[in-house]
């Protein structure tokens, strides 16, 4: 197992390296002089030159690239162009809110999605199955900002159960939780739709496997056959979807944060776009890519736990 983990970790390094290279290249495509962007049109030549020097823009592209790589490896993502603080401090200030949101949403998605998916598979082609399928199809059709707006209109504007604008007070866990409910439901329901669908189809596949018949031939009860023999074998595609969904979820959480006016990476991105803060965007991409790669790594490790055959490979 340890060997397997080490191997998978090793495999993520080239991906991260190429990701960093792409981000670096992408940032160089930006038209215009970043120093000019920061200091504005009125800046004098000396100040511009000084800033360029400070940012290392006067060096050769190769030298810039190498120091960028070296800085990234050390976790130094550079200076934000708009705030003059380090990119990492900008991101880390809001990252907990986004992480909190995604974890809560994943919880909603899995706890709701898996049982509903299994039940739909067991009642294949009956009413419950059709209803589940239609609802989940509709659920995964929602752009996060559309569902967010509708939830906001219904529960905050009409029913007034939740605040229209989140006001997050760090020291008050109850308010913080209350503010989390609507956004995480928004994000979680969309995810539950995906999880339900993949659980259903994966379970349907498993139900026709030979070993399920063997389990019946052993005289096991139906419940034990489904939940103990079936679900474990159906889990791999489910874990895959949860893992793959992570990338979509980051995008959706950005939209959710914007709609619910929550602090978080989403609003940071909006700000960075408006102020054309490319180092911040670049840093965000690297952090996100890092998270996505790590989540993929985790799903691979979970495969190893679920399916003994994976380790053998």
């Amino acid at each position, binding site marked *: 197992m340890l*060997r397997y983990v080490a*191997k998978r970790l*090793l*495999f993520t390094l080239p991906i991260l390296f190429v990701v960093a290279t792409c981000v670096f290249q992408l940032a160089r495509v930006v038209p215009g002089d970043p120093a000019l962007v920061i200091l504005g049109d009125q800046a004098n030549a000396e100040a511009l030159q000084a800033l360029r020097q400070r940012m290392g823009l006067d060096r050769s592209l190769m030298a810039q690239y190498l120091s960028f790589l070296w800085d990234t490896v050390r976790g130094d993502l550079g200076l934000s162009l708009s705030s003059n603080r380090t990119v990492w401090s900008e991101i880390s200030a809001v990252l907990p809110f986004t992480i909190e949101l995604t974890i809560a949403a994943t919880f909603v998605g899995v706890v709701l999605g898996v049982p509903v998916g299994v039940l739909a598979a067991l009642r294949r082609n009956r009413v419950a199955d059709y209803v589940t399928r239609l609802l989940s199809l509709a659920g995964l059709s929602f752009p996060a900002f559309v569902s967010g707006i509708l939830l906001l209109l219904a529960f905050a504007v009409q029913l007034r159960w939740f605040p229209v604008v989140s006001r997050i007070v760090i020291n008050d866990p109850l308010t913080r939780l209350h503010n989390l409910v609507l956004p995480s439901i928004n994000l979680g329901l969309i995810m539950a739709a995906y999880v339900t669908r993949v659980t259903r189809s994966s379970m349907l596949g498993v139900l026709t496997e030979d070993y399920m018949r063997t389990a019946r031939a052993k005289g096991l009860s139906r419940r034990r056959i489904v939940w103990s023999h079936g679900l474990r074998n159906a889990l791999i595609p489910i874990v895959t979807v949860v893992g793959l969904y992570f990338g979509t979820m980051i995008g959706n959480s950005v939209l959710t944060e914007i709609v619910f006016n929550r602090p978080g990476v989403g609003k940071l991105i909006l700000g960075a776009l408006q102020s054309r803060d490319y180092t911040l965007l670049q840093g965000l991409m690297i952090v996100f890519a890092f998270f996505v790669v790590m989540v993929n790594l985790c799903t691979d490790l979970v495969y190893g736990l679920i399916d003994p055959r994976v380790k053998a*490979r």
Partner: protein
Amino acid sequence: MSDGLTVSGLSKTFVSGGGLLGGPEQRVRAVDDVSFAVEEQGSLGLVGESGCGKSTAARCVLRLIEPDAGAIHYADIDIAKAGRHELVRIRRRIQIVFQDPYSSLNPRRTIRQTLTEPLRVHGVCAGREADERAGQMLSEVGLSRDVLNRYPHEFSGGQRQRVGIARALMLEPSFVVADEPVSALDVSVQAQVLRLLADLRDRRRLGFLFISHDLGVIRHFCKQVAVMYLGRIVEQGPVEELFREPLHPYTRLLLDSSPVPDPAARRDLSEETGEVPSASNPPPGCAFHPRCPHAMPVCREIRPATTSPAPNRLVACHLYG
């Protein structure tokens, strides 16, 4: 150089794993120093259990799998050394029939497309003439010409196998490699296809390399037989003689284990005969020694050479060394 197919010293090792991420490297000697010859218009059966390398050997003959070592000659062609253009020429002389009639036909192509495509690709003919030839071939394999526009899923396993045979014969080859051509079929259909293959062999004067795990099928179809075990040929000779009087202990085990439809011939195999060892880690010396009732100390250490204890018979066993 004689006519027909001559193979000598054929070897193929599959390497899996290894490298940066692959885990421990595994080397499987699928085919290990295999030599045999099939006379012009002769038929050699290659028999053995799953994983013995018989299919790999057959595919190496067509260079569908690139052999690591060995010489392969057919008539005047040096197959092992053939370049791209020569290989195309070989394709018109040697063809292959596959085991699984469900996997061997492209489900998205009509029978017409399947049968005329080789003619077009090799620039033999196209259009009406190709259709005409496809129709003739269909009737030769016992199908109606009317099926040209149908798709494979409309046919039974036996009919698909006939289409597969027709496709192999479209380029008018003189030699056919048949890889378990009847193993996937029911007994009654199996006999139909065996008879068809025998008819075609006689009518078209075809040479055959016939791979099967079924001793009965081999006996019925082939004049010569070679028995493979873990990548090597352990015994070869004329079918009748070899089945009547097997020399190698493995051949004997194989014959004794194959049931005969006659309750009077019930055998009680009292000995536990073990499993086939892993091909990635074959036993040293004679690969069969862990299962062999006659194993001697020498069998554990020295790989037996192939000897000829009787005319036309070859065996690789220390009992005859």
